[in-house]
């Protein structure tokens, strides 16, 4: 969503105008509120648009003030009221010459003064902080979300119980544009995923070592002590793993099996840069199999049933391989570490994929397909 949409602009203004030192201090350049000139700069909304918008907002404020005189209730919802920060130097300087206090009183008496509109449109009020009268006793923020952003958060909250409360509330509030069909391949369940990722990311930046309990198989655990170097993420299976190097070998620890993780304070951060060249092969690695023997592969894909589209999407991160069209077919050539995982991927294409190299993989797949046929 962009600021061409008047509602989006309104929400943008409200999110900045709650600026208040000690409460919701979104911009520490000002104690309270934001001036229109500054608001235009930080929001990238042309100043002429900001002028017109605020003219409308003050005019409406005047109309509401007039309407409220019919009733006993407070003037309007507190978060709508625009007020000048009359403690600011800018206000006091302008007030003397422009009689702002008087003009504002006229607005709040329900009679919008032409003079105020002129001053606003001419930019004379651009330096005076304006704030929203929220009278908030607790710091609260309004985060505006487009429909796609709301859908994005719904997916994110599945792995993050801390977000679930807010997303549960939102689920009851609005009618969703579309439903989301989960990927059945996302089978890894994580405890405290974000805390672990945060710790690992910090360790990568600072050079600290981490230690924890790692589940190697059902009922069996080991203590690990690692210096994290990278995190691998498999988007097809939603699988996170932390990569480190030990004794000249890449170690892979899956985050769903990490039961505990903490900084190892007994070992100071390593100051020297570790040689991470062992990780340079990462675009060629399948299934985190960094230590397996590399094999040259060559596969031909036929152009049927969106196969090419699928192949290109799924190989987008394989930056070392060659993907090219020739004679009406799509070819993929690469050096692969983790041939078993590569084989599983090829199976997904059925007869639309023909393995040309290595011969052992080709024969393996042909045999497997024949067995399946015989079985059915």
């Amino acid at each position, binding site marked *: 969503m962009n600021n*061409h*949409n*008047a*509602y989006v602009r*309104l*929400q943008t203004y409200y999110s900045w105008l709650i600026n208040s030192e000690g409460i*919701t*201090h*979104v*911009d520490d350049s000002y104690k309270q509120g934001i001036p229109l000139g500054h608001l235009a700069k930080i929001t990238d909304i*042309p100043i002429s648009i900001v002028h017109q918008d605020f003219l*409308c*907002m003050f*005019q409406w404020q005047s109309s509401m003030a007039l309407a409220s005189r019919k*009733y*006993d*209730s407070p003037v309007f*919802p507190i978060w709508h009221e625009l007020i000048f920060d009359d403690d600011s130097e800018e206000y006091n300087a302008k007030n003397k010459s422009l009689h702002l206090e008087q003009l504002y009183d006229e607005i709040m008496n329900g009679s*919008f003064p*032409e003079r105020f*509109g002129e001053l606003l449109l001419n930019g004379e009020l651009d330096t005076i902080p304006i704030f929203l009268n929220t009278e908030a006793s*607790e710091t609260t*923020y*309004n*985060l*505006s*979300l487009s*429909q*796609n*952003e*709301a*859908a*994005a958060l719904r*997916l*994110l909250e599945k792995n993050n119980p*801390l*977000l679930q409360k807010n997303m549960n509330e939102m689920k009851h*509030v*609005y009618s969703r*544009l579309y*439903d*989301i069909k989960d*990927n*059945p*391949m996302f*089978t*890894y369940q994580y405890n405290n995923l*974000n805390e672990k*990722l945060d710790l690992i*990311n910090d360790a*990568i930046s600072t050079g600290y070592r981490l230690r924890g309990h790692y589940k190697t198989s059902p009922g069996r655990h080991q203590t690990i002590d690692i210096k994290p170097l*990278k*995190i*691998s*993420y498999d*988007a*097809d299976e939603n699988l996170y793993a932390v990569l480190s190097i030990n004794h000249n070998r890449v170690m892979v620890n899956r985050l769903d099996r990490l039961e505990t993780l903490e900084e190892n304070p007994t070992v100071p951060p390593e100051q020297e840069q570790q040689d991470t060249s062992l990780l340079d092969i990462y675009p060629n*690695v399948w299934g985190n199999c960094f230590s397996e023997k590399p094999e040259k592969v060559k596969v031909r894909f036929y152009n049927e049933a969106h196969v090419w589209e699928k192949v290109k*999407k799924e190989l987008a*991160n394989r930056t070392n391989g060659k993907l090219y069209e020739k004679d009406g077919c799509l070819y993929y050539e690469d050096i692969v570490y983790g041939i078993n995982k590569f084989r599983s991927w090829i199976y997904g294409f059925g007869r639309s994929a023909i393995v040309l190299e290595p011969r052992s993989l080709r024969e393996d797949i042909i045999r497997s397909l024949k067995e399946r046929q015989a079985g059915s």
Partner: protein
Amino acid sequence: MKSKQTKTHINQQLLLESLSQHDSLSIRQIMELLSCNRQSAYNYIKKLENNGYRLSKHKESGRILYSLFPTEDDTLQYTPLSMDILRKYTILHELENGPVDKDRFRKHFTVYTPDELNDMNDHVLLDVGLTQYYNLIKDLTKNGDIDLIKETQKYCLTGKNVPLQMTLKAMELNELNLALTTISAGSVYYEDLKNIYHKTNVLLGYVDENIPHAGNYYIYGRKSQISENVKEKLELLQKYNYKEHLLQISYTSKQGQPLSVLFATGKIVYSVEKDAVYLLGQKLSAENEHGDIQNIIIDLSTINDIKETTQEHSCYNSEQFTDIFHTMFGISIEPPVSVEVRFDIHGNIERKIRYLHCQRPRSAIRTDTEKNQIIYTDTIRGLSDFAAYL
């Protein structure tokens, strides 16, 4: 008293907003909109043109119609803020805590019928009367910004033109910001999550624009993201009342054939696995009206054109399509089949099956301790997808 100059400015804004929202307006419509005479209406058109807006004029059914030309001047692309937008925003704000009964909703505001008590305490002030309130509600419904849920007769927000608001306490905002620092470029909806991260940074007063640890990740697997093409198609779809009216949809089949169907939308589904958006619904034809209903799936990215008809339907989010959504394994409308599969419990099998069970509301699992097996039962549409999973 409003100044003449300011009233002129207000009317110009009103006219501009109306021209932005409608394909074209006649002079009569402009006169009604601005409550002015014919000459004044022409003057307002002239003023817009003098201010740099380009208007086109064409004849239709004996009337002259005016339309706004798109322009390269960025300021002209900003929909003007108006008093009605502020009033509508006030109305929408009252739905942020959840859907509200249609009849009770009016009483949230200082909008009363003549015979009701003039007791306005604890109500949200609106500077309009009953008629204008109903016009605002009608506009909001017509523009798709609020929905009236048929089953409950409650109004709820849609987020279509007005961003949804998530109210967060300071700690919750910090937690969300922290959660977003750890997302990887391989995450589905990565770009949208990045936008949210930027917004949380703004609210917290942080400068960082980029996800801080993006460089720490090696990403494998497909690049998932709802494409711009699909987002455009979703926006196109939302221009129509697909929830209640049949649509004439032209699209391209998997085999590359152009097809056109009269379609009742049952559900819109985003498949994470396929990274694509689909319409599930009923295809109608002269034969279907009296015969069997045919359910079909349309990949949103294959749609070429949509036209709304005046024929009504009641398929949207119906029990039938909700059941289809819950029982389909991938994206499928095949007849449901009851399945029972026994898995030997070893390795990661039990974890995978338990996770599958969590995703599928019609499934059940039990264990056979004697044979050390886990038994999975389900009702599935799309056996080939299930077979591929197995």
